[in-house]
């Protein structure tokens, strides 16, 4: 029997462990791939060039995921189904490694199914309007389906191997989508940068998975959780190594400092891609992995956690600061995503499983909303730069109001969703004893509010500075904005500490069906003092932002009012991390390249040239010796002999009848004489 189910036996009776919705939930994982194939083969011939297939698949998923979500919210779900693919013996056959594929339905994956499907559906619908007239709409939607499908495989995976399959699928699809406009070199380079950075981190993930698999004999998460919960004393060292490696993998996907460098460049892709990538798909993968393997960090690898908290804290504060100097509206949002991922990582690392995932949940809504709003603005202005915008409040009211909702949620203003999740993170981090990190988080809240105020003021305030007359986006784009603004505003109410909604289980409770005691902290009631400090920081950020950028900033000098002599050049250069990474790559690459060049010049060229010369010599012998001397001699000799014979014989054929008659008579005479004489 499934170890997960054995452990869950103490769960309340209403827990859903069978039935149609959970037993066929694997269809959620498959449908986007079916859509992908259908779009590739039939998309071009359809009315919306394949978009309807992609939307259909995600609509199906949204319905299914909503059903699971509601089931989980009211009763709780727990189901795991795996199919054995391969079984490999090692250590002389004494140990076995089982490879399985399947799907998992529990609180965590249900939340992710719902997020990916719901946000994905709205983004897909939005993309129909945004991508209209694009050169490769069909391919875009095919890759988009692949993107969503890979993420669903990632979050539905019951073991590390399937998770890696989804993980790499997400990496591939993001590469394709970031480089969607590959005609420009920097766009395809951005795709490659994302891919390479992720690949570097993936090495950690794969090594970590191998260590887990070899140690446990299985890659299954439930088995991993069970072993971790038991807290085997001999496993601390190997668990710490595995945990550190897995975290390194998560750092790449979830853009933690210093592997965050790919994410801002990933803005080269179309805006719907950025929206989906930053909200529900891709970057949440790392945080999801940390949450999925949470018992490992909580019980066996405590030693790794402080380092994780520090990296998360650096990410949330230092990288957030970079958003202050960006002119490209999408890059502001990109750095803000990195910063928010820092919050999530810090929370999960500090022991706030619920807090980190709750922030992931709310962040998905408001960040998708902000990106789609930015996309609507870009669509109207035909520029990514905020210096070309301004005053759009008058022209684009729907976009403006939804963007404000998203910004306030991101800034953490009461009562929008970001306030509740950020507050829970701060409370958890503080409770776990990382007081300094908690203050860094409060500082981060100030910075977040500041750059969002700047973005709002430069985009929607003041007067319009771009070309042409901007118009409100079409309905197909504004409806998804409204659809996202509602949860962005209200999702926070799902998890207010100390408040129970009738008929609905607490977020903390339904998020993780406690198959094993997790030992994580979640506040029992709102700490009003801390909430007030966090809200105060956010409001201060908004106020300072309004004070600095609220007036119409039409000149570069006014926009750069915040110019601080030493810090700003540092921000503009992105702390030189990109250059550092490039230098590091060069340092590794240069000797390697030189060695490869040497091998190429002397070894491979030698082999190739040698083979060529050998062939040439052989050919020369065959031509000169065999063909010209031997074969030609025979052929020419035959021809000459035939010619000579013909020349000799043809003299006999004179054409004179009487000559023939004479020969004939002569022949007869000779015959007669022969008969007479030799008889």
């Amino acid at each position: 029997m499934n170890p997960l189910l054995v452990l869950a036996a103490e769960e309340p009776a209403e827990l859903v462990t069978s039935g149609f919705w959970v037993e066929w939930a694997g269809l959620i994982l498959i449908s986007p791939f079916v859509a992908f194939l259908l779009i590739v083969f039939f998309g071009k011939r359809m009315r919306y060039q394949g978009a309807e297939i992609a939307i259909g698949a995600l609509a199906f998923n949204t319905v299914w995921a909503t059903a699971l979500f509601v089931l989980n919210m009211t009763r709780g779900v727990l189901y795991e189904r795996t199919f054995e693919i391969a079984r490999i013996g090692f250590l002389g056959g004494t140990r076995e490694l089982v490879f399985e594929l399947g799907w998992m339905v529990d609180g965590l994956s249900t939340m992710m199914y719902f997020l990916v499907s719901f946000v994905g559906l709205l983004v897909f619908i939005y993309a129909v309007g945004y991508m209209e007239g694009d050169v490769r709409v069909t391919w875009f939607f095919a890759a988009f389906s692949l993107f969503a499908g890979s993420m669903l495989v990632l979050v539905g995976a019951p073991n590390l191997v399937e998770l890696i399959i989804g993980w790499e699928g997400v990496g591939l699809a993001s590469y394709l989508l970031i480089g969607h406009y590959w005609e420009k070199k920097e766009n395809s380079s951005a795709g490659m940068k994302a891919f390479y950075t992720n690949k570097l981190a993936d090495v950690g993930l794969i090594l970590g998975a191998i260590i887990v698999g070899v140690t446990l004999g299985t890659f299954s998460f439930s088995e991993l959780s069970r072993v971790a919960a038991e807290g085997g004393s001999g496993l601390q060292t190997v668990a710490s190594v595995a945990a550190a490696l897995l975290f390194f993998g998560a750092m790449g996907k979830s853009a933690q400092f210093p592997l965050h460098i790919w994410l801002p460049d990933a803005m080269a892709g179309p805006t719907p891609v950025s929206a989906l990538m930053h909200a529900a798909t891709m970057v949440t993968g790392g945080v999801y992995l940390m949450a999925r393997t949470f018992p490992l960090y909580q019980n066996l690898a405590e030693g790794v956690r402080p380092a994780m908290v520090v990296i998360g804290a650096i990410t949330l504060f230092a990288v957030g600061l970079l958003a202050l100097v960006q002119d490209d509206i999408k890059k502001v949002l990109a750095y803000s995503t990195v910063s928010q991922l820092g919050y999530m990582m810090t929370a999960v690392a500090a022991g706030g499983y619920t807090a980190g995932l709750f922030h992931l949940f709310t962040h998905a809504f408001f960040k998708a909303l902000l990106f789609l709003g930015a996309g609507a603005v870009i669509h109207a202005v035909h520029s990514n730069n905020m210096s070309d915008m301004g005053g759009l409040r008058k022209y684009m009211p729907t976009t403006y109001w939804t963007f404000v909702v998203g910004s306030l949620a991101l800034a953490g203003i009461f009562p929008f969703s970001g306030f509740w999740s950020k507050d829970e993170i701060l409370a958890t981090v503080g409770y776990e004893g990382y007081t300094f990190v908690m203050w860094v988080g409060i500082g981060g809240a100030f910075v977040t509010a500041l750059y969002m105020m700047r973005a709002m003021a430069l985009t929607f305030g003041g007067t319009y500075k771009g070309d042409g007359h901007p118009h409100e986006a079409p309905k197909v784009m504004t409806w998804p904005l409204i659809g996202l603004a509602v949860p962005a505003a209200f999702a926070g109410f799902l998890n207010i500490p100390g408040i129970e909604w009738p008929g609905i289980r607490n977020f903390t409770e339904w998020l993780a069906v406690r198959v094993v005691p997790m030992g994580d902290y979640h506040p029992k009631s709102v700490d009003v003092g801390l909430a007030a400090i966090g809200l105060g920081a956010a409001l201060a950020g908004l106020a300072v932002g309004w004070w600095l950028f609220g007036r119409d900033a039409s000149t570069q000098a006014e926009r750069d009012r915040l110019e601080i002599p030493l810090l700003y050049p540092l921000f503009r250069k992105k702390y030189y991390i990109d250059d550092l990474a490039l230098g590091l790559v060069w340092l590794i690459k240069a000797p390697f390249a030189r060695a490869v060049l040497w091998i190429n010049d002397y070894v491979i060229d030698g082999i190739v040239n040698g083979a060529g010369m050998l062939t040439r010599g052989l050919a020369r012998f065959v031509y000169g010796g065999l063909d010209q001397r031997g074969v030609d001699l025979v052929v020419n000799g035959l021809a000459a002999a035939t010619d000579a014979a013909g020349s000799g014989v043809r003299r006999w054929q004179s054409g004179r009848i009487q000559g023939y008659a004479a020969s004939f008579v002569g022949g007869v005479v000779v015959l007669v004489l022969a008969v007479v004489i030799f008889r």
Partner: protein
Amino acid sequence: MIINQFLILAALLFSLGVYGLLVRRNAVMVLLAVELMLNAVNINLVVFEAAIRSTLAVGQVFAIFVITVAAAEVGIGLAIVILVFRNRKSANVDELNLMKW
């Protein structure tokens, strides 16, 4: 029955035909020479039949076949000669040397 004199006559006639065949230049005369040779053969056939007296008179019958074939041959031969003469204003056998390599 003594047949020597007939055989000698036939031999002379045949030799005359061979001579004519090899020496005469006019195609008509060549055909005539061929006729001479055929008739020499006919004499032989008839004479040997007279000597042997077979019940079916094979020699005579065969002679009649030869005469029939000779008539057909002359008919075709003369037709060729006439056509050649029309084309080339000559029936000289020496000049008909086109049928060679």
